[in-house]
C-alpha cells in the first residue's frame, strides 16, 4: 500500500478525481458545500485521515500542482487586461475603493485579533483573508503567517460574502453598480465576483478588476512594511 501512496501519482490522481467530482456535483445541485475548493479540501482531508495516509505522501503529488500557483498568479494579468476598458473609465473611484477596503480589512483584522487575544502569528495568518488566493498566500509567507491556514480563512471569507452580501446589499440599499462591484471584489474576492455577476455585467467586471487590484495593493503594503 505504501508503495502506491508514496508515488507522486497518488496525490495527483486523488486531487483530480475529487476536483472532478466537485464539478459534477455542483452541476447537479448548486450548494455551498460543492464549492470546488471546499468540497475537495474536506474530502481529501477525510480520506487521508481515514485511510491513515501521511500528508507527506499526498504532497509528493500535491507539490507538483502547487508549483502551478505562480503561473496562476501571473495569468491574473490577463483578467485585468481584459477589463482595462472599464478601469479607464473609472480608475480613480475603483482604486480609491480598493485601497479603502484593503486598509479597512487590515485594520479591522488586526484590531479584532488583538481584542480576541490571538497570537501574533495567527494575526498574520488571518490578515490577508480578503484577497484572492495567490496574493493571500504570497502575503502570508511574507509577513510570517501560515499559508495553509490563510487559504482556509480566504475560503471562509469568500463563503461568508457569498451568503451575506445579498442581504447587506438589500438592507443597506447599495444600488450604485460600480461601487457594488468594487466592494464585492475587494471584500470577498472570487466569490464576490460570482455574486456580482448576478447583479450584472458591469458589476462583475468591476468585481474581478477590484479583486486583482486589492491583491496588488495588499502586496504593495506588505512590501513597504516588510
Amino acid at each position, binding site marked *: 500500500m505504501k508503495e502506491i501512496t508514496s508515488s507522486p501519482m497518488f496525490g495527483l490522481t486523488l486531487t483530480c478525481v475529487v476536483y472532478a467530482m466537485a464539478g459534477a456535483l455542483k452541476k447537479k445541485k448548486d450548494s455551498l458545500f460543492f464549492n470546488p475548493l471546499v468540497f475537495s479540501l474536506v474530502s481529501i482531508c477525510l480520506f487521508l485521515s481515514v485511510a491513515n495516509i501521511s500528508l507527506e505522501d499526498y504532497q509528493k503529488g500535491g507539490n507538483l500542482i502547487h508549483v502551478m500557483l505562480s503561473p496562476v498568479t*501571473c495569468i491574473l494579468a490577463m483578467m485585468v487586461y481584459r477589463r482595462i476598458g472599464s478601469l479607464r473609465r473609472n480608475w480613480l473611484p475603483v482604486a480609491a475603493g480598493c485601497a479603502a477596503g484593503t486598509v479597512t480589512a487590515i485594520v479591522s483584522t488586526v484590531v479584532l485579533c488583538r481584542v480576541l487575544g490571538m497570537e501574533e502569528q495567527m494575526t498574520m495568518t488571518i490578515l490577508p483573508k480578503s484577497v484572492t488566493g495567490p496574493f493571500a498566500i504570497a502575503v502570508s509567507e511574507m509577513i510570517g503567517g501560515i499559508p495553509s491556514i490563510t487559504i482556509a*480563512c480566504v475560503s471562509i471569507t469568500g463563503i461568508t460574502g457569498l451568503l451575506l452580501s445579498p442581504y447587506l446589499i438589500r438592507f443597506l440599499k447599495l444600488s450604485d453598480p460600480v*461601487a457594488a462591484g468594487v466592494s464585492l471584489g475587494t471584500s470577498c474576492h472570487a466569490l464576490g465576483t460570482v455574486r456580482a455577476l448576478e447583479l450584472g455585467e458591469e458589476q462583475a467586471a468591476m468585481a474581478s478588476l477590484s479583486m486583482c487590484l486589492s491583491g496588488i495593493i495588499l502586496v504593495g503594503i506588505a512590501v513597504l512594511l516588510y
Partner: protein
Amino acid sequence: MKVICQLGIIFGICLAGEGISAVLPFTCPSGIVSMLLLFFLLICGLLKEEKIKEAGDFLLDNMAFFYIPVSVGMLEYFDIIRQHVVKILLICLLSFVLTLISSYYTVVFVRRLMKGGAD
C-alpha cells in the same frame, strides 16, 4: 501543441519574474512580479492575448484546483485551527462587513466628488 506553446510562454514569463524578483532590492513575491510583467507585455502589445488565451483561460477557470494542495496542508495545523475556529469565523465575518461598507461608500464618495468637479 498550441496549448504547450502557450504554457511555455507563461512559464517563461514566470521564470523571468523569478529572475527579476531575485535582483529587486526589496522582497516582492515572484508570482506578483510575473503578473506585472505579463500585464506590461500585454499593454505594450509585445505579447498578443491570443498567444496565451487557451492556456490562460484554462488556468483562470480552474484556479481553485491549484489551491487544493496548499489548503490540504492545514491538516498539519488541525489543533491550532480547532482551538481558534470560532474566533476565526467571527473575525472573517465582521471584517468582511466593514470592508464591504468602507469600499462601497468610498467609491460612491469619490464618484460624487468627481461629478461635482466636472460641473
